[in-house]
């Protein structure tokens, strides 16, 4: 049996909603075949009030082993250091996490809020919110650089707004099978967020990108990068390879990627719909511009915006 506690802080619940879309395994298979017991998850919990508090206190006291602590949502430390911008019963959310995290074999920060702070931590950060072990691109966050869960690992970050259910479930399965999950420089599983993977990969607009056919306005067929602010080439995640809800992705539906898995989301992507011409920096700008000119000339006539 594997005990999982899923705590929600400054979150919109989107990562839980996304998680419920998991298939292979779906939530039922995870419970039945992998022996997962979800000891507390607010949205689906059978009981309320005292029972919830007692369950959580049991793990804090060490009366039962906490195998996996999933944190969804940023951790507000405000107002004025009280943490009371978010509370669950008698304790602030921050207090719960500081007591539960050291008891867990593994800690997973699910979603960009828990991983890096996301919108709650965006300037001017009114509640002094932060990620579980990162604050945007800086290592440390709420638990600090030295934190290691009982299994000796830092917090595993599964970013995304929301996180894709596969990213969460496959990481859980790997961890439960005792596999070594390789992490990237932001402590995210390389399988999903590695440097060589971008949202650009697998985007059906790639040919438009190659020949520099830019969508001028919404609804055009062209590449969303140049005029509509797509962050695809600058965002490490496999959205266009894996697809969402087994169907599609934002760019496939004419919506630019907003870069929601990035540690600097949302500020790093704003304004979201800005014009951006250059994918590269430094001396590479020159060959890029020259190459783009040639590619425009070489454009096949079937590539049209309309």
């Amino acid at each position, binding site marked *: 049996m594997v005990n999982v506690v899923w705590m929600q*802080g400054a979150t919109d*619940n989107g990562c839980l*909603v996304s998680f419920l*879309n998991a298939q292979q395994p779906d939530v039922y298979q995870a419970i039945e075949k992998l022996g997962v017991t979800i000891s507390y998850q*607010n949205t689906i919990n059978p009981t309320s009030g005292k029972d919830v508090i007692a369950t959580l206190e049991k793990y804090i006291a060490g009366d039962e082993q906490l195998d996996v602590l999933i944190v969804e949502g940023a951790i507000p430390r405000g107002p004025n250091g009280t943490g009371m911008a978010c509370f669950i*019963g008698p304790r602030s959310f921050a207090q719960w996490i500081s007591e539960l995290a050291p008891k867990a074999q593994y800690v997973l920060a699910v979603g960009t809020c828990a991983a890096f702070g996301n919108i709650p931590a965006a300037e001017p950060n009114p509640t002094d919110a932060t990620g579980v072990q990162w604050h945007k691109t800086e290592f440390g966050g709420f638990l600090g650089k030295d934190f290691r869960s009982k299994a000796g690992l830092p917090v595993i970050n599964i970013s995304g707004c929301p996180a894709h259910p596969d990213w969460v479930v496959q990481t859980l399965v790997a961890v439960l099978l005792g596999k070594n999950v390789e992490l990237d420089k932001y402590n995210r599983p390389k399988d999903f967020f590695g440097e060589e993977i971008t949202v650009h990969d697998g985007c059906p607009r790639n040919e438009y990108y190659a020949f520099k056919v830019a969508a001028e306005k919404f*609804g055009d067929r062209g590449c969303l990068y140049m005029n509509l602010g797509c962050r695809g080439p600058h965002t490490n995640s496999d959205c266009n390879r894996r697809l969402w*809800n087994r169907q599609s992705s934002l760019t496939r539906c*004419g919506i630019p990627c907003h870069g929601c898995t990035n540690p600097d989301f949302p500020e790093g992507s704003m304004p979201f719909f800005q014009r951006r011409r250059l994918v590269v920096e430094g001396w590479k700008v020159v060959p890029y511009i020259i190459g783009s000119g040639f590619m425009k000339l070489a454009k096949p006539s079937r590539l049209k915006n309309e």
Partner: protein
Amino acid sequence: MAELDLSPITRIEGHLDFKINVENGKVTDAKAIGALFRGFEIILKGRDPLDALVITPRICGVCPTSHNDASARALDDALNASIPENGYLMRSILLGVENLMSHAAHTYVLFGPDLANKKYEKHDAYPELVKRFAPLTGTSYKGAVLTRIKLDEIFAIFGGKHPHTTFIPGGAPVRPQLSDITKALSIFMQVQDFLENVTLGCSIERWLENKSIKDVQKWLEEDEKHANSDLGLFIRLGPELGLHKLGPGPGNFLSYGVYAQADGKNWLPAGFYDGKHHSLDQSKIEEHIKYSWYTGYEGGRHPMDGITEPYYEEGEKYTWAKCPRYDGKPAEVGPLARMIIDKDPLVLDLAKEYGPCVYTRVLARLHEAVRLAAKIKEWLLELDPAKPFFGSYERPSNAEGIGLTEAARGALGHWVRIRNGKIDNYQVITPTAWNVSPKDSNDVHGPIEQAVIGTPVEDENNPIEVQHVIRSYDPCIACTVHVITPRRSYRLKVV
């Protein structure tokens, strides 16, 4: 007198704490406590107006599409958008699919498990209730969880992913092909299977023939499948479990109207009902903060001039939720309000017979879900892939816009003011802010508080009656306490 602390309330969306006083087996006072403040729209101040399209849906991952719709409509208004018919249809389909999904999740995952509560273990139907509605293991619960996934698939065909697509002013960014539409219709048939075989025991069309309680009685007797369906079982057992006597609330109802059409009307209309039907006048909306952890003004303020200055203290104030009022009155929002304002004959008959209560509220939600399912299919068939989905919008430097719509759980409004091409003020009032609001400046309780006061509590260790009432409103706290861009510079008071 016993003060019961029911915190945290689970099986709702987000952080709600709740405290009640119980005297002689009855609730005498209630405090609904919004337990999360993110202060999140603040970052919109000074930003590009289009940024609101991406930021505001992330107020709520359960009903993000209602924020998509409200933000797009506020900007349609501010940026003089022109929207082709396909654009309206596409927004209605995406919002409708999400609202249907929310209703299914609420019925089976959030509310349903309470029917398997031990309070009812002496009832003959108890084994059946447990078999169907017990959390995770219930047969209908499981069916609903897996059917929900199908609705999200339909959503993703047109919206890219769920949760968190992005709407735009001027229509929809997607260009679906005919095969996308037929795929959506095919997946929809799987959803229809669950709705017809498990929830209703009959076709969608047959259920929609029911226009009165008398019709429903006839429907129950007509076929065993009807009586034994989840809805049939609930209709029969609700009064036996006493659900028709719980949670009346203030008796005022508000709807902003939703599913905008190209003809300028909404499929479900806007209005206010306080015993009489009134047309909606959004200038009558105000927010109070006497009992909320904010400061900066007294009485009420219209959202276009709203101020949000957090002020946390332990004293009279008790929640992070603000307190919206319509014409100075608390108002219930949600499916019951929408159906009453739409003058739906069946729901009006139910409200006349039982009044607003847990039973009527749940039935209104299910009835709306069935109507919505039928409508989504119509909208899908009306899409014309040969015609445009996006029209146009302008970029004025100074403008104001109002975006009113309905989430599954009720009225949602966005108010935006643009100055020099940037956001000057962005204000959101969510549905749950209406329902879960605290006392106002005149010390009148909010709808859920009013509904809970007077509720009998049989067993103080299992106050399930109170939980029925709270959950019947489908509160979504992720939404309630959010952002709000103050017009003056933002600061947190040192208390």
